[in-house]
């Protein structure tokens, strides 16, 4: 792969260059580091990585499509990374989030990429983070990261975002009650979508109890009807408001540092895991217990000279 050429293509905003660059990283092919190191840092600095998470069916993809509409009317180039789980049995995945965003399919300034978790909810962070920066380097001012979030492990991906909106809808009662306690740890904004449906008002009031400050209750909860495009502009204004705030008070920079650590650890784990699997092709039955065998294995690994070309 000709990395300088690929960099030139993607910095010029060419769809194919952007797409190939993301695959290079996602498939961990040679040249990935060189590519990532060559990305335009100023653009990465400026991008807003917006996490949208919530239970399946809450309306995240529809909402994403509408937010993109608002951004495009302001002539802002935007990227979308839509993440869905791989099947644990076959390793395959059916990725259908795009269906709800097809109104933007022919817009050259909307970059949409579907991504499967590939059975490594951890290992995904590195790929998704890199994809977001590739999109940023291609000129996207906003990158939306859509993930299904109900459990703890999925929330790891959310930590890649500068700002996260949790998307809820009436009728997801149990999911929501279960996550209520941890909401403020992951979400900066709460979106009560499907505000056209019965129960939306109650859900909004219920969510209000998450915030102790009445001002937060006002600012951080938004009602939307994504399928009709209602409430979207207000939501986008709030998002930009908090982005400004977080840039000024340093929270955004702090989150970037945190996601740097997360991604680094994630890549390292991926690399070590591959090497461990390689070494386990010759099983270590001289140890009677797996834990003991693992210790031997790790000792061996630490003493090894790392061949970077192989990773």
């Amino acid at each position, binding site marked *: 792969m000709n990395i300088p050429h690929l960099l030139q293509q993607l910095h010029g905003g060419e*769809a*194919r260059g952007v797409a190939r660059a993301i695959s290079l990283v996602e498939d961990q092919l040679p040249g990935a580091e060189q590519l990532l190191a060559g990305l335009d840092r100023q653009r990465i600095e400026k991008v807003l990585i917006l996490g949208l998470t919530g239970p399946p069916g809450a309306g995240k993809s529809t909402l994403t499509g509408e937010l993109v509409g608002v951004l495009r009317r302001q002539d802002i180039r935007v990227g979308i990374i839509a993440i869905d789980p*791989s099947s644990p049995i076959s390793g*395959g995945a059916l*990725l259908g989030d*795009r269906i709800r965003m097809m109104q933007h*399919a022919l817009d050259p300034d909307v970059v949409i990429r*579907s991504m499967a978790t590939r059975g490594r909810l951890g290992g995904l962070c590195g790929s998704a983070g890199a994809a977001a920066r590739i999109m940023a380097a291609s000129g996207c001012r906003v990158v939306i990261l859509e993930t299904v979030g109900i459990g703890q492990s999925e929330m790891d991906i959310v930590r890649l975002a500068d700002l996260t909106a949790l998307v809820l809808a009436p009728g997801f009662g149990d999911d929501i009650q279960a996550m209520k306690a941890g909401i403020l740890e992951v979400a900066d904004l709460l979106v009560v979508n499907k505000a056209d449906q019965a129960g939306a008002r109650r859900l909004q009031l219920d969510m209000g109890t998450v915030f102790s400050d009445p001002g937060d209750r006002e600012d951080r909860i938004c009602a939307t009807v994504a399928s009709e495009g209602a409430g979207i502009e207000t939501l986008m204004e709030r998002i930009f408001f908090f982005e400004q705030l977080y840039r000024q008070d340093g929270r955004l920079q702090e989150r970037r540092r945190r996601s740097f650590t997360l991604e680094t650890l994630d890549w390292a784990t991926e690399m070590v895991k591959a090497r461990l699997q390689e070494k386990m092709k010759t099983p270590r039955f001289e140890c009677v217990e797996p834990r003991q065998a693992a210790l031997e294995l790790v000792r061996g690994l630490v003493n090894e000279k790392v061949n970077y070309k192989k990773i």
Partner: protein
Amino acid sequence: MKKYRVLIGKPGLDGHDRGAKFIARALRDAGFEVIYTGIRRTPDEIAAAAIHEDVAAVGLSSMSGGHVRLFPAVVDALSRAGASDIPVLGGGIIPAEDVPAMIEAGIRQIFTPGTKVETIIAAFTEACAQQHGQRE
């Protein structure tokens, strides 16, 4: 195994997506990452999505005769977008006498109603492997 990404789409106006969904699921169950774009897509939309998603192959489904015009139109759209290296395969209710013209128009392979799922999966695997082989 290498992860292959494919796009399954339905160009044209008919809304019968059972065939497309069936193949999408079968490919997923065979380990593919399948980007499904839904019904009523234009050839240009399918080509743009294929490029953005960096798929190694595109699968099209047609149930109502639109294939004669629409399958070649997708091949054409890909080519205009600079992605003639992405192979297009097609299936659905396609009379045998239409097949030669489709192949002539650049469709890599056509599956008629009798084709076994295993055959289709094998064809996608081969098409993807070949496409990846061409990537430098």
